[in-house]
């Protein structure tokens, strides 16, 4: 993947840089002075002269780095964003380099950023359990004054996010220690605390710090705690495996059904609308046959990445078949009012995605194959198009077929394309 992308194009320097750095670049270089010109360059560059990386001086985006980086990503989600700063790091950027970097250092940073595996969702317990409705704190109410192992099992099942907290409570109750905490490293521990590593086999889980514990006592309890922490980690991993598509990092069909059921319930209670888009890649078999399955896999991964850069927070991308995807638009808009029409924001997002796919460059297909991919899709919205999971998915599927019949490369929304 990386080797192919070397051919992508130029570096866009945004801000004031040392002349030596800019002039020593092997790649073609463009220079602009502010974020707006950088966005303009990204939006208007031709397919033959693509911008591979945007190198931004920190002061340019300092006023609101998150919004500025988001703006660049909206325009071209595939360009690598590198922030050049004195000491700060910007987590939203693909890479951070120091001010005295060299051209070789800059190229290495861009190459490293590109060679990262396709972005997979970091599935936190909060996200997965909340969207699936697993969290139910009422079920972890203590039966008696003493905490026991059963409370830990309940926490694992119903409130994984509180697991560590309950584990520490239990330790305090069993031992009578005045202070007890599970910490990332020992620098966070109080000076008077005794510490022990939380290790189960080769797995590290931080350290256990306690005040009022003997070393022997702490070692025994740390073994016990590490065992529980490892169980919690494995359970989380299994949960992710059950709901995530391994190839693309998107959610899978099981997740779609579970999440849609829950979201429909919420939509009914709060009088909100909920839209599902189902789409597939036109003639995907052709790509697999022509370019090989490896290239096909790459397209799937890149497509999910592209889609994630367009959807809003709270929306979910699912891969429900070989080249079939579903996007769950969980509407954050205010409750609908009597007589209101279909939401238009979703249509804009869907059309924008279709457009971005059309313009997307897929390195595995080579530079001569740019802009050859298209998708066909269908949208269905609760409550207008269906009241339950099956009817909504069926309606979206029917509209996808309608798009295919109408010559592909289209998204059917309601009765019009």
């Amino acid at each position, binding site marked *: 993947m990386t080797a192919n992308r070397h051919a992508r194009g130029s570096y866009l320097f945004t801000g004031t840089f040392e002349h030596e750095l800019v002039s020593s670049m092997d790649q073609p270089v463009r220079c602009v002075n502010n974020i*707006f010109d950088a966005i303009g360059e990204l939006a208007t560059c031709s397919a033959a002269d693509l911008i591979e990386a945007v190198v931004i001086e920190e002061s340019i985006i300092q006023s609101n780095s998150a919004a500025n980086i988001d703006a660049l990503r909206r325009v071209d989600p595939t360009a690598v964003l590198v922030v050049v700063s004195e000491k700060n790091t910007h987590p939203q950027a693909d890479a951070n380099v120091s001010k005295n970097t060299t051209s070789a250092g800059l190229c290495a940073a861009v190459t490293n950023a590109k060679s990262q595996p396709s972005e997979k969702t970091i599935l936190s317990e909060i996200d997965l359990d909340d969207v699936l409705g697993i969290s139910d704190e009422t079920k972890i109410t203590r039966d008696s004054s003493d905490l026991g192992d059963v409370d830990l099992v309940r926490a694992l099942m119903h409130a994984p996010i509180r697991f560590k907290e309950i584990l520490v409570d239990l330790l305090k109750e069993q031992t009578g220690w005045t202070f007890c905490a599970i910490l990332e490293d020992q620098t966070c521990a109080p000076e008077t605390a005794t510490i022990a590593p939380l290790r189960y086999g080769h797995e590290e889980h931080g350290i256990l710090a306690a005040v009022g514990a003997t070393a022997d006592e702490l070692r025994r309890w740390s073994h016990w705690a590490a065992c529980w922490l490892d169980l919690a980690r494995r359970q989380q991993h299994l949960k992710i495996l059950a709901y995530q598509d391994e190839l693309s990092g998107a959610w899978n069909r099981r997740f779609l059904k579970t999440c849609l059921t829950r979201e429909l319930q919420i939509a009914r209670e709060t009088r909100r609308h909920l839209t599902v888009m189902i789409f597939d890649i036109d003639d995907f078999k052709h790509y697999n046959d022509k370019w090989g399955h490896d290239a096909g896999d790459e397209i799937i991964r890149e497509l999910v990445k592209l889609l994630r850069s367009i959807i809003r927070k709270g929306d979910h991308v699912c891969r429900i078949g070989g080249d079939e995807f579903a996007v769950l638009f969980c509407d954050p808009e205010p409750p609908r009012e009597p007589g209101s029409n279909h939401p238009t924001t979703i249509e804009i997002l869907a059309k924008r995605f279709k457009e971005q796919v059309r313009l997307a460059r897929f390195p595995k297909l080579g530079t001569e194959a740019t802009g050859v991919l298209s998708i066909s899709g269908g949208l269905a919205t609760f409550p207008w198009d269906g009241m339950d999971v099956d009817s909504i998915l069926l309606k979206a599927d029917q509209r996808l077929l309608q798009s295919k019949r109408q010559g592909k490369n289209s998204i059917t929304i309601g009765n019009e394309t």
Partner: protein
Amino acid sequence: MLVPLARNEAAHHAAQKFGFQPSIEHEPALAMAELCLHVNHLRATQAWCAEQPVAQLILVHTQELEGIDQLVHAIHAYFPSVLISELRDGRIVDIKNDSAVVDKLTELPIVHSEDVDANELYMLLDNKPHEVEE
């Protein structure tokens, strides 16, 4: 529409008053990005030779935001067809493209060309010399 977050209501009122269904942004960079995507979308979906619909950016209370001059300058440079307006005293007022030369001239220049004789005119129109009737 670009409006500071604290003045969001003003944008909604203006949209209602003028019958727009705008996309509202609160950060200049995000407004620029949305505008780029919108213009590219209009271009991509427009039939060849059809009249190009004009994208418009309306600035509302943007004196409270930083970088507006640079934003306007960049839009004029990269998307000269975009109409930039400002909500001023309840009216939408266009912002002129100062980078366009014609706006800086008080009077349109008058160009005097040399006279064209009949033969040259025939050559230009018919691509053949004028045949004089005898």
